[in-house]
């Protein structure tokens, strides 16, 4: 019985990147129903398995500080879905966030990998609306992979389920 369960299970490797302070670790904790009150900047990486129905998502959350970013590439191999997290309230660093994402999309090892962008911290009053972030980043010209921009708040727990559904659909249609 266990074996049949296993074979029906879809296991995927999810890579989660984004600038420091974007909220990656908080999102991952929220998704695994852990306490989010004490999150500290990630120096290396965290990995968690999220189970949902017949899906097992192994999420790799890598630190986003500038000094750590050169190591992102060590995690590119065999990625099924790339999650990119943006702090929607950080207007000053929107360009930097956009540039880093563009660099990722140019990587050969991530070619064609579906992209989910979490526009996080939508609970803050100065958060930029998702459509505006999309436009500002000029991302709608992407045509070499499926992608979706999803507004969310890791703090309030909104938008995360929609993102999970998108990923599951993506894995289903593979």
């Amino acid at each position: 019985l266990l074996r049949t369960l296993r074979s029906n299970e879809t296991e995927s490797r999810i890579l989660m990147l984004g600038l420091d302070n974007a909220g990656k670790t908080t999102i991952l904790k929220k998704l695994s129903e852990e306490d989010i009150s004490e999150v500290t900047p990630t120096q290396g990486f965290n990995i968690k398995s999220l189970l949902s129905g017949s899906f097992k998502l192994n999420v790799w959350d890598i630190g986003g500080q500038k000094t750590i970013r050169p190591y992102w590439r060590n995690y590119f191999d065999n990625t099924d879905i790339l999650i990119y997290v943006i702090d929607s309230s950080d207007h000053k660093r929107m360009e930097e966030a956009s540039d880093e994402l563009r660099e990722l999309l140019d990587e050969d090892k991530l070619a064609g990998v579906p992209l989910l962008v979490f526009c996080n911290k939508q609970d803050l009053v100065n958060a930029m609306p998702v459509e505006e972030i999309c436009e500002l980043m000029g991302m709608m010209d992407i045509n070499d992979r499926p992608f979706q921009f999803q507004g969310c708040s890791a703090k309030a727990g909104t938008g995360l389920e929609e993102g999970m559904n998108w990923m599951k659909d993506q894995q289903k249609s593979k």
Partner: protein
Amino acid sequence: NLIAYCGKLSEKDMTFGVFGCDNAGKTTTIHAACGQSQDPEQGATFGMKSFIHKEGSHTLKLLDLGGGQKFRKFWETNFSEMHGMIFVIDAACPERFEESAGELLKMILHPMVEGKPVLILANKQDLPGALSQGEVAKRMQLNEKVTAKKWQIQECQALNFTEEGGCDPRIQQGVQWLQNAVAAEFERLSLQVGVDREEAKRKAAEDRAAAKLARQKKREAREAAAAS
């Protein structure tokens, strides 16, 4: 001979793009066409997604794109891939017919859409006040405006897809019409897709290289500003 015949069938893999204004029901329609239920709470598409629908030995690829105002100018980055187009209209929302007609015309006049058949869906027929396909066509003046093109309009209801009942058969009928229209000119359309795709790839690579250079310059400026 059977092998040759099967080979021919599998050659007829087709890609259709699904366009239309936000809230028209594009995502819901694609889910229905592919036999999947759609969560009405899922929200707007701010991106792109492809759905693969297998039928016997050949596959139909349906591309779902965001219909919001800000996304429409990027529809054309995907035109090169398409054998045919599906354009969805909310038939219960006549206030937006003019907007829809404008987008539809802009699309079909694009050089990479020329000569490709178009299926127009007058969706949301279950809603009170929904207009019939004839009435939608009349109000949008499709007969006058959409000339020199193979097109067809079809009423449908994308929502309320049930696992048992399947999707509204009118969606299948519409998609079947489009498949037949493409199949009738498959060689010409495939050739066009092949040529356009190469051209689009070349241009995308050029744009990417230029963008990379621009980013590098911006980054240097940003870092210089931070240092001083």
